[in-house]
């Protein structure tokens, strides 16, 4: 290991190179930092490291200075000279780049003291922001592959499975099947020629979810190590990582990680001299959401049409090419090495009686601290949204949170103290899913939310079974009608009937969960549907076809002096009035596009 003799530096600058920060010019900042460091003659003392996603995406691009754990945020290239000079040369951390909690006066310099990070418990994301994902040495330095050594040299397959069973780890892909039990089933399934397969499901497709992507980008070796341990436990010799091709950075880093692991003898023949053989192939998904369903994913790996097949037989009995196959999600695999290293009992000590350990969520929507968080099971929604997420922007009221992506449901504000685990979320009509968490404020129309998620599932339905193919389309048609003010009360009855049938009668998880957004919004926000249908009004003014736009002549004239911007922007020429006069909207001509409302700087355009 030539790189082990690398130079030592006094300071490391950990630049977040997650997709969010990269699109905010993280790489340019890295270059600027290196240039500036060189200019200041610090190149032998300070090293710039690109890490995986730090999690606090809202505040990107991010930089953490180690040692010290000083957290800088929303940097830009022009901030670099000041930062280098002050912090690195003069040793004075720069307050103006630090995180400033909205309600406090002084910024928080240390990462671990920021609320966003304080309540998080890092297991799957244990290496986030600390290692360069493209360097296996970094991973090994953080006790990486220690668990593998233990599993290969000191443990029998039964002991490994026992440890996982004790940990209470459940599938992080959504359904929450006990991982230990699954491994045991695969181990016990006879294979005609002894071949068994292992699959890592990285086909993360939920809108607004990026947990798996972040793990694969930030810490690919944790997944590989987990798979190696799993392979030993179930007796597999070949593994597959199925990853979306829309994640180019993840794909690139997996390939690098696999190459490095192979070159160090951690993958391939006779791993660590124990006589254990295992290798991993990468299969890139073509972008179909349904391929996240395990049977469809397996069909896709086999090169067949990516559509699900009925279960049983489960993949544990007949999976890839008819052989017993263990398929787990990225986050599940990433948890495995820690469990083996620190013991199942330790893992089981985190969480609730039925759901153990931690769960990674991607916190998005109407929330201050957008980002990736890992929290212990049993934490309440309130803690996530207010303590970690920093509440709703603009002081708006929290309305609901959608968990589990398009397959999940909307949990209303009154359930904000719900402790999060598999059972409680299912009870509330939603599901854990892979961990998407979309926060909605009072400006969100729940009918529109249901319509949005359904338009996604309808578009992604493979079309194999009748209820999902035809039912989701019929439901979407009804929801679209309602949001356009054309809905009737019979529509609502039919919608419920459809939702129930699609949920009960569909072939795979996609169809079985597709009506969840509709069912939960109907359960918790039925009055909104009624208002749309009876009063032809959208309380949140989101459904534009239901809005009536008017111009307050007084404001228009007094504040805007008849600026004429709305008239010039009106596509349907519905606005009349000359410059300097108050303007008027002809309701007959108005197509309710809302442009006038958006462009008016004086608040003269009103929506009802």
């Amino acid at each position, binding site marked *: 290991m030539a790189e082990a003799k690398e130079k030592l530096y006094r300071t490391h600058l950990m630049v977040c190179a997650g997709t969010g920060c990269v699109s905010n010019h993280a790489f340019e900042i890295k270059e600027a930092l290196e240039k500036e460091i060189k200019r200041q003659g610090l190149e032998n003392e300070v090293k710039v490291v690109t890490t995986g996603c730090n999690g606090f995406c809202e505040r990107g691009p991010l930089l953490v200075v180690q040692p010290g754990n000083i957290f800088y945020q929303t940097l830009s290239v022009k901030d670099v000279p000041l930062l280098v000079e002050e912090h690195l040369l003069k040793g004075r951390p720069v307050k103006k780049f630090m995180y400033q909690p909205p309600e406090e006066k002084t910024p928080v310099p240390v990462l671990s003291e920021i609320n966003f990070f304080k309540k998080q418990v890092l297991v799957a994301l244990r290496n986030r922001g600390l290692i360069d994902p493209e360097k296996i040495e970094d991973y090994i330095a953080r006790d990486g592959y220690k668990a593998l050594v233990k599993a290969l040299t000191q443990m029998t397959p039964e002991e490994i499975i026992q440890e996982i069973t004790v940990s209470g780890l459940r599938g992080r892909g959504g359904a929450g099947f006990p991982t230990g039990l699954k491994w045991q089933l695969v181990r016990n399934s006879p294979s005609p020629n002894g071949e068994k397969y292992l699959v890592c499901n990285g086909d993360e497709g939920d809108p607004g979810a990026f947990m798996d992507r972040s793990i694969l980008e930030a810490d690919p070796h944790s997944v590989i190590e987990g798979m190696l341990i799993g392979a030993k436990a179930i007796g597999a010799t070949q593994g597959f990582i199925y990853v979306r091709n829309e994640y180019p950075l993840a794909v690139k880093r997996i390939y690098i990680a696999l190459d490095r692991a192979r070159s160090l003898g951690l993958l391939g023949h006779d791993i660590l001299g124990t006589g254990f053989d295992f290798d991993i192939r990468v299969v890139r998904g073509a972008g179909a959401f349904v391929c996240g369903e395990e049977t469809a994913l397996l069909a896709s790996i086999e090169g067949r049409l990516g559509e699900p097949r009925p279960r049983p037989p489960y993949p544990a009995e007949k999976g890839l090419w008819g052989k017993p196959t263990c398929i787990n999600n990225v986050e599940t695999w990433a948890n495995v090495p820690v469990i083996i290293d620190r013991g199942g009992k330790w893992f089981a000590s985190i969480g609730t009686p039925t759901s153990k350990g931690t769960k990674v969520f991607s916190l998005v929507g109407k929330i201050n601290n957008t980002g990736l968080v890992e929290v212990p099971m049993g934490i309440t929604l309130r803690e996530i949204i207010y303590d970690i997420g920093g509440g709703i922007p603009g002081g708006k009221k929290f309305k609901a949170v959608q968990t589990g992506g398009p397959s999940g449901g909307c949990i209303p504000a009154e359930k904000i103290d719900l402790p999060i685990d598999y059972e409680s979320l299912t009870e509330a009509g939603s599901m854990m899913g892979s961990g998407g968490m979309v926060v909605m404020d009072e400006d969100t129309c729940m009918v529109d939310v249901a319509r949005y998620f359904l338009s996604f599932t309808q578009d992604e339905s493979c079309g194999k079974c009748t209820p999902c193919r035809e039912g989701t389309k019929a439901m979407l048609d009804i929801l679209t009608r309602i949001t356009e003010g054309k809905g009737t009360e019979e529509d609502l009855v039919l919608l419920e009937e459809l939702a129930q049938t699609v949920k009960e009668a569909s*072939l795979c998880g996609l169809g079985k969960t597709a009506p969840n957004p509709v069912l939960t919004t109907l359960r918790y926000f039925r009055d909104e549907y009624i208002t749309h249908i009876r009063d032809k009004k959208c309380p949140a003014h989101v459904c534009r076809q239901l809005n009536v736009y008017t111009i307050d002549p007084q404001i228009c004239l007094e504040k805007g002096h008849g600026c004429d911007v709305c008239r010039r922007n009106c596509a349907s020429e519905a606005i009349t009035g000359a410059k300097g006069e108050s303007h008027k909207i002809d309701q007959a001509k108005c197509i309710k596009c809302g442009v006038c409302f958006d462009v008016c700087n004086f608040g003269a355009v009103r929506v009802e």
Partner: protein
Amino acid sequence: MVTVTIDGKKIQVEEGTTILQAAKKLDISIPTLCYHPLIEPYAACRVCLVEVSVRGRKDLITSCNNKVQDGMEVETASPRVLRSRRLNVEMLLARAPAAEPVQRLAREMGIDKPRFPIKDPNEKCILCGLCVRACEQVVGACAISFIDRGTERKVMPPFGEPSEACIGCTACAHFCPTGAITYEDKYGRQVIHSELYLGPSTAIRVPIRQAVPMVPFIDESACIHFKTGKCQLCVKVCDRQAVNHEMKEEEVEVEVGSIILATGFKPFDARRIPAYGYGRLPNVITALEFEHLVNASGPTGGKILLASGEEPKSVGIVHCVGSRDENYNEYCSRVCCMYSLKFAHLIKEKTEADIYDFYIDMRCFGKGYEEFYHRLLEEGTKFIRGRVSEITDLAVTKEEEGKLIIRVEDTLLGVVRRIPVDMVILATGLEPSVDHNQLAKTFNISCSQDTFFLERHPKLAPVSTFSDGIFLAGCCQAPRDIPDTVAQAGGAAAEALALADKASFSLEPVTAEIDENLCSGCQICVGLCPFTAITFDREKEISVINDALCKGCGTCVAACPSGAAQQKHFRDRQIMAEIEGLLLV
């Protein structure tokens, strides 16, 4: 065995039985659309849903693919099941309003009009995937699959182009429950009458209806299994497990004392006379095809129908097709006149059609035959003496339109006539069977000028051949009808038995022999012997004659350059002595 309760009825079934199969045993019908017993279940239409409770949990599952479990309780018509099933059918009706099975289910459920918008009123495809699965699982061609997602999903060959993988077996269309898949013949081949009636030749068929023994065979050239290695549906459906694709032609050696050749004939191929239009004109059929048509177990149930399905108003029967014709066969096929008369009689009996019988000479050679001819004359069959020159569908007059026109010189009236008819039956003659020449070589027997096997003597040995122990019976020797064949076969059998019954067998005294001392081993005689009586002894390096086979023809004697081959009783010395004796006298 596991016990399940379906709609309150208990039944014991074998493990691995699906709910659908178990319900069928109880006579409980569960509707299905994407299910086919010969194809693996797909569970896509979701019409066969049932409600099961296992360990207190109630779930809707599809009955086509889910297997019964011990103690399972199944409800096939619970309110939950009916609601889901009804909605599924309603949605399918909106998708494919023209699909007959969906219409039927909708009618049964009282759905008049779906509550969902209909995109295409002519749509038939319900996306059940039977075609795709048949192409993959049964045929093994994988020429079609689904493209697109959701409601845009459809069945297509790759890129929507005709697929090279398609073997044109039409299995997809056969498995399609709604008739959404149709196919056409792309090669411009016209459907001829015979094919219409007999159907495109299926891979498994009986040679002819009323064949004896009535055993079907697999035509390798048409069987999908021999093209792709898959299918074998026949194996699956045959309860007796009688189908075996592994069977191969094999050679069996049997030691016998005598052989009777009864290799039969093949009918003259009427396509060889293009002027008669066979294979081109749909209503021109051969005698054998008419036999199929008129047979009570035939495709039309014995009705005489045109290609269009109508009854003919006039029928022409053309004699001597391929017989008594310098261009094809000069001999008379002997049976055609009588079967033609039989046809005329049958047509008269079954239809109202006018019958024209075109003959050269009416050859009613047997007992009661002439009387039958007279009866037909009385029945009103119109006999026209003359050879038909052409059969065409090119009409000249209005009456001829849509008809087949037979052009013939009526030799009794001395005029050329054009006779329009609806159907023409060609009385095709008899020809030696396909491998006739090969057989002749194998058995070392000769053929006469008409290419049928030659008997040893037309009067004294009509069933024997020049090879001892080989006898002839039936049409391999000459065209003949069934009574004659039966009689001749009896004679051949008696001759063969007589040979087998003998304790001793007297050989011809006049055979050739080879003088061991003179034979140079040149082997000229071996190739020349017409009776394969001479073999070469490799040890002694001389030719040896088998006395039992030698007929004493003398060919070897004349050919032997060293004079080693001599004919017993006709040695050079003996012949010279005879000549000398004559000269002395």
